[in-house]
């Protein structure tokens, strides 16, 4: 079970979440917003199955379920789920890999069916580099940015875990990193 992070990214900005029980069902809540910190007092309590409700000044109840994940927080509010990325130091490593153009990682556990590139190949953005078979379907893994294949870290037919780096890419105009 992952911890629920207290520092997250919301609307593109890092935000610190603070909540504190007062008395009965009243809670003090604060978080950073544009130009400062918002604080408010709400009523809240548990729902079935690990959820909770809260009620602001307008008396409207919100129904919420939440849990921590590898990369942050899954939050279901009034029937819609949102993923809030953690900005805490130790979180989000694996997830960030998915956006890192220098590393093509397996997005899920599966079998590497086919490699579509070899070391030294020039690759375009969105060019398919490998095919992963998982959950009875084939999934193509594209390049995130244009560059050149630096190394291949896997071989066809092997079973790879989610998060495994499969291919390393040297990004055009970026010979450091």
């Amino acid at each position, binding site marked *: 079970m992952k*911890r629920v992070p207290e520092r997250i990214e919301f609307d593109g900005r890092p935000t610190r979440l603070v909540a504190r029980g007062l008395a009965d069902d009243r809670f003090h809540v604060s978080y950073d917003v544009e130009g400062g910190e918002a604080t408010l007092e709400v009523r809240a309590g548990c729902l*079935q*199955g690990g*959820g909770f409700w809260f009620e602001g000044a307008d008396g409207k109840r919100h129904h919420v379920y*939440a849990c921590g994940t590898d990369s942050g927080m899954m939050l279901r509010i009034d*029937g819609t789920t949102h993923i809030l990325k953690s900005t805490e130091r130790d979180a989000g490593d694996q997830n960030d890999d998915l956006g890192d153009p220098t590393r093509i990682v397996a997005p*899920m556990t599966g079998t590497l069916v086919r490699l579509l590139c070899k070391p030294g190949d020039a690759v375009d953005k969105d060019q398919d580099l490998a095919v992963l078979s998982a959950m009875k379907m084939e999934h193509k893994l594209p390049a995130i940015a244009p560059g050149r294949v630096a190394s291949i870290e896997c071989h066809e037919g092997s079973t790879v875990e989610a998060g495994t780096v499969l291919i390393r890419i040297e990004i055009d105009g970026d010979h450091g990193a």
Partner: protein
Amino acid sequence: MTRPAPLFDRILVANRGEIAVRVLRGIRELGTTAIAVCSEADRDALHVRTADEVHVLGPAEPSQSYLAIDKILDAARRSRAQAIHPGYGFLSENPAFARACTEEGFVFIGPTADQMEALGSKRHAKELAQAAGVPCVPGFDGKDEGGDNADEATFVREAARIGFPLLVKASAGGGGRGMRLVHAEKDFVEALRAGQREALQAFGDDSVLLERYVHPARHIEVQIFGDGEHAIALGERECSVQRRHQKVLEESPSPVVDDALRQRLEEAAVALARHVGYRNAGTVEFLVGPDLEFYFLEVNTRLQVEHPVTELVTGLDLVHLQIAIAAGRDLASLVPGHRVLRGHAIEARICAEDAEHGFLPATGPLTICQWPAGPGIRVDTGFDRGSAVSPHYDSMIAKLIVSAPNRAMCLMRLEQALRDTALLGVITNVDFLRRVATHPAFVSGDLRTDFLDVHPECIAHEPAPADALCAAALATVFARGGQTNTTSGGTKGQPSPWDMADAFRIGGAR
């Protein structure tokens, strides 16, 4: 008078997940001992916990467990089962399995192996449909004159004859696996090879066929039942909205089928069923063009994933019908008079997948698993809180099926039920399903198999509302560790932040 003697004493269910749970429950209701099988990964799965008796088959890989015919038959022998229900997927459409069951003295709850073989091959099925007078889509069966798989050059030539866009489909398949849509000649060869490879992987047979792509098309199917002599149809299901050729939402009746069209569809399906002396449950799939002309697509020789919508509009229990027919009861005694279709039902397939990222399947634990409840709401699932969605099996977590007196009410009920479904810990398509179900085109019944290409706005996720920040802050207290609330009884009272010192503070130093 007491309860009637059961049709069978002991039935084994050779499947897992929601369909195993649903069939095992149906068996127990009949007073019959319900025997489950499972892989080593599924020892604690819900279907195992539903059964009266369990036999472990082997490792997680399907080939070592749910596809291992010898191991399943061995479990059937050890458990003294009289009959075997195959569910859908896995061995349900494998004639060798059906034949082996029968040869070993077990009643196979499904069609005969011969029927499965004949109808399971798309080529042969099409011939049977034509012989029964059912209209078919132009295509190429993928075979050369000797009956072997045609060579690539022949495929290329036939593809040009049929014209683009066309479909490459696994001959042995079903459910969209091994199926490829090809828009232009230049993409054909790669698609053909990928289709052949997937067909081989999925079915152990790389035969594929080609078919004209009717466009825009609806996917409408008819539920059939036969007892070998007689056959009936139980209305239609429209399953047009699909992603990656997998059904997303299924409903009955179809918003476009009136009584006259329903009668024609049912007559076509029954003609085919009678032509082959069909036994047990099956589905005849049709492609319906914008002119409401329909073409035979294929027959699924098993219970479908979406059978609950038919159960809700007919009031019948299709699993109980399957078992009764397998026990030798005749249809006329089981469905006296004409089927009564009433109301509307829609099924939403809840899957662990990321709609926004190409419907990429997701794996992980269901940290939160809360289902909706109430009148007209049915949830068929093989998962519960703490279950993990594993990469070994498909990504379907549950089917949410709602019914109501009419389609408009059914859609409102579905929207609320999807909002009341809380699955966290793994990414699911629950919000995607709601966006589709509330899309104006869906609401108006303007369905087509390329619905999601035409309405890609269904795929994009809503931005988080401002209230989400307050909710997230409270979550640091309420959902700490994900399990804290459960310990406090799941429901009553509060967790205990105010029991802690006044200085209690989650957000760290300021």
